[in-house]
């Protein structure tokens, strides 16, 4: 067992999948010689060559479109968007072409779009966003957003082997801060399955990505007050693991949803609706949300800190729920 970062976990997954399957190719801006803006693809070109590690022009629409075309011949392209903020540039190609292909005319699109995402690194409004819900709202796409190195590797392997288009969000704050023991050899983590990070009986905190770690900190604080929070890490937003959410709510009767995405239209609203529809009788308190503000991601550190959900916000909300 070796200790590896989340970034390294993804890199290993790309290496091993390219080694395992010649249908896997990578394309994106500066991913070859340079190894990617965050060096996730470092070393791929040396090993797999120019045909399989393709440096593209700055053309997000062309990258996604070409990957889609490649997938029609049975290839499994993995595209890198340099920052997920630039996914807006290929919104049409993803939501209208890629996502609808299988439903409308039965053409599967086995491709992965991976991209560094999220804030907390003072990247400013165009290098810090969490645009996952634009795409969770689009039928046909799968959305993965891991929080651990182990999951990142296993989920990336599942994403590459999946026969659907998968958007793979890589939280850049976690890239080199999170380290896990990762076993040698091949393993996968299934798409669409949440993970209980901490068992608890008093309140459920449903979350994902960087906020999974923040939520664990909050849970530790709450434990000092005798409140045992259960932390559920979604890992995949589409398809959503509703069973795991409902099971946790049935156990704790209280639900706090935490995400780094903005509040209005964030997945917390959808989760609250699912729980109201399917587990209303299990609730002992209204569902609460702790999310980012409904603003662009501001640049200056005090502004961004105000924008992002903090441990104290979660502790306060969970405490109120526990004592409701």
């Amino acid at each position, binding site marked *: 067992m070796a200790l590896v970062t989340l970034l390294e976990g993804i890199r290993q997954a790309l290496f091993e999948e390219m080694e395992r399957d*010649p*249908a896997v190719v990578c394309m994106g801006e500066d991913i070859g*010689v340079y190894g990617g803006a965050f060096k996730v693809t470092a070393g791929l070109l*040396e090993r797999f060559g120019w045909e399989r590690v393709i440096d593209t022009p700055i053309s997000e629409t062309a990258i996604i*479109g*070409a*990957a889609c075309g490649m997938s029609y011949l049975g290839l499994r392209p993995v595209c890198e968007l340099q920052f997920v903020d630039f996914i807006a540039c290929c919104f049409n190609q993803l939501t209208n072409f890629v996502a609808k292909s*299988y439903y*409308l*005319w039965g053409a599967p699109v086995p491709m992965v779009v991976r991209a560094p995402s999220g804030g907390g690194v003072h990247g400013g409004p165009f290098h810090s966003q969490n645009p996952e819900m634009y795409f969770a709202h689009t039928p046909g796409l799968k959305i993965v957003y891991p929080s651990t190195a182990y999951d990142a590797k296993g989920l990336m392997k599942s994403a590459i082997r999946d026969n659907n288009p998968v958007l793979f969000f890589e939280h850049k704050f976690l890239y080199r801060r999170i380290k896990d023991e990762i076993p040698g050899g091949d393993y996968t983590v299934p798409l669409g399955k949440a993970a209980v990070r901490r068992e608890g009986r008093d309140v459920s905190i449903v979350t994902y990505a960087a906020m999974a770690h923040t939520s664990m900190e909050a849970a530790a604080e709450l434990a000092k007050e005798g409140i045992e929070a259960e932390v559920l890490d979604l890992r995949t937003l589409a398809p959503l693991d509703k069973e795991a959410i409902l099971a946790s709510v049935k156990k704790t009767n209280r639900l706090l949803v935490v995400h780094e995405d903005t509040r209005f239209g964030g997945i917390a609203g959808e989760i609250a609706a699912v729980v109201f529809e399917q587990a209303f009788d299990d609730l002992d308190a209204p569902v609460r949300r702790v999310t980012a503000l409904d603003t662009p991601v501001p640049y200056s550190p005090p502004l961004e800190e105000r924008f992002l959900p903090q441990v104290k916000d979660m502790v306060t909300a969970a405490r109120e729920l526990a004592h409701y």
Partner: protein
Amino acid sequence: MDKKANPAVTREQQLDLYRFMFLNRTVEDTMTNLFRQNKIVGGLYSSLGQEAISVGTTYALEKRDWIAPMIRNIGGLLVKGVRPRDIFTQHMARYTSPTLGKDGTSHFGDLKNLHIVSPISMLGDLIPVMTGVAMAGRYLGQKIVALTWIGDGGTSTGAFHEGVNLAAQQRAALVLVIENNGWAYSTPVGRQVPIENLADRAKAYGCRAFIEDGNDVEAMFTTAREAVRLCRAGEGPVIIEAKTMRMRGHAQHDPAEYVPKEMIESWKRRDPIAMYEKRLAAAGVLTDQKKAEILEGIHAVVQEDLAFAENSPFPPPELAESAIYCEGALLVEPQWERPVAEVTPPRSSVKAEWHKTEFDEFQADAIEGAGAVPSSGRAPSATIPRASGDGAQHELVGASRPGGTVPLRGKTTGDGTKPAGRTPSKRPAKSAPPVRGRK
């Protein structure tokens, strides 16, 4: 392009081209009737007067090649082997249609057998997708060509630019046919772009282009055949601008009153089917008996397929909830036609560094020239890398210096299609031929 360089079109091919154009028109006439009977669920688009483009270009392909049609390319679907019943049932939203009623018009495809990629309504998006098809084909060693069409209106999209640029940078085996039918819905081409020939843009992308008479089916066929040959030889992509005229409104609902009547009348005299019929009759290829035979065959298949479509059920409502995700196997597994060892370690391993064969130098005459003339006279660079598969992709001379090594100077000719200054030393510029049959 020098017409004489092309081998003759055989008598059999001529009759095929005629038959497919006639089939195309018959299928669309049949649907116009269906539309008037309220049997078409949504809109109906017409390729009246543009049949020669779809038919002629697709006819230049082989079975293994790929197409992606737009709404006015029913002729391409028919040549590729789609039956009229699929087109009828699509428009009538029936359960027997290729999309089971989930989409209409020519929005359907066939990955496995006919190699057709379905379009979407947003223009330009097929260009990067078909570039990807061509890239994958090359990677797998299949030697396929991908062909798609775009209207004059669609050339103004960002996807067009990104797609053509990527195709050119990759030397992708892509044939892109620009159907310049004069109108983007109600807006004439002169109000969309400030240039006369959309094919001129090819020079800026560093790829070849031909301008052709879109109402001459043999010209479309032989030009596309040359484009396909170039693509298969690794000399793609190739743009073909087909000059034509949209003879109906944008769709059935649109009476197109904004089109000057004289324009319609003048183009009526250039009807591609009538012109070709006359030509083949004069050459003794299309006798009265032969024509009757062809028409009878078309009538039979169209009537049979129409009956099939009219007797087809609508889809069951619950179908709406099916197949959001692909749960089963892929339809198409990679078909390797080259040794996989070539793309797997150790043979795939390279040194990860750019190999620049020459250094960029400041070229004063380039500045001087750029200030004096529009850059449309620039010819494609002779140093743009060839296929990524040949290991030369990293010789990024063309990319690091857009336009290549030829300094721009002098003036362009009046039509803006030919550089009057120096031409590249290694590869001659493909200047556009005049449109035949006009002017």
